[in-house]
């Protein structure tokens, strides 16, 4: 299997995640799409690590996972705080700063 295939798959998944972030309104789903983008980048990292035959790419993918886990924890806590006050998880409803 050439690494090019894996990188191509990573590109496709990344673009799909980006579309999800742009199109969806539910903050939870937007979050999930961000996770999808992070995962796609991880796949590319692992493919590059295998291509070059050293493990730095895998270690970086590991750090990406750690940061993503921390980000999800804080993000979901913010989401719950917003949901508690506004009773909605839609990003359109959190527009108080606009007016």
């Amino acid at each position: 299997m050439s690494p090019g295939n894996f990188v191509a798959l990573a590109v496709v998944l990344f673009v799909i995640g980006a579309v999800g972030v742009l199109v969806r309104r539910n903050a939870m789903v937007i979050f999930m799409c961000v996770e999808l983008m992070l995962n796609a980048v991880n796949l590319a990292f692992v493919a590059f690590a295998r291509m070059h035959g050293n493990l730095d790419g895998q270690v970086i993918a590991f750090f990406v996972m750690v940061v993503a886990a921390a980000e999800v924890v804080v993000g979901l806590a913010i989401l719950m705080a917003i949901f508690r006050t506004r009773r909605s998880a839609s990003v359109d409803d959190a527009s108080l700063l606009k007016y």
Partner: protein
Amino acid sequence: MHGGVLAISDVASTTQQIIFWLLAVVSVTAALGMVLVPRAVYCAVLLAVVMLSLAVLYALQNAPFLAFVQVIVYTGAVLMLFLFVLMIVGIRAKDSLVETIKGQRVAAGLAAIGLLVLLSLTVGHAVLGTAPVAGPSFGANNVYAIAKLIFTTYVFPFEVTSALLITAALGAMVLAHRERLTPKLTQRDLSRLRVASGRPAPLAGPGTYARHNAVDMPALLPDGTPAESTVPAAIRGVPETPDQRRTLLGSSAVVRSAAMPGDSGTEAGQDGDA
């Protein structure tokens, strides 16, 4: 002898290709479904599919450590967290399909095509070559080699990670914390409310006397009518409010009149942390 080795490596690479294309189709389909399906829970399940197939793809690239971390951290922890929050927000919550910004979807589609072309051109221009024969630090020796790398070259980022995790945990606690505005109901208060409500026994669980005892199946009352209030609020698709908890506790009107003097009545039965 030589031919035998070649045949074995041929079979292995064919298997790898089959697995890759299968998982590529599955993961791209699931990712597309994630963008298109309106219900957030289905999105979470489809994301689990994508993450599990990515874990297999890592294993396919001789990265067993990352494959396991992917399953444990992403599919195990992160998705569980998503599902927990979804249960609080309401499991049937749907995305509205109305465009709030005019032409946003078209613009998003164009941007996506542009991004796809840009990335494809970049990747296409790069000389990726073929994978070298897996080195000694891939495969069985992978965990040892990664540990060596993390604790030597990457030891400072690794230590900084601990600060990040502590900060994230603290941030989550601060953000999810809610001040208690009313005194907490004791067991004595609760039992008094229950007796005052006129229905001392708890409501039947979901599915009682119904056709099956699934958690989303309302119990049947003695006259055969379904009692919707026996189904948990998150399953019914409405966020759980203090009012609904009070309804589960007993008839709300009676409870409100019997509420404690120091209790405003609106926050009855509400926990400090949700």
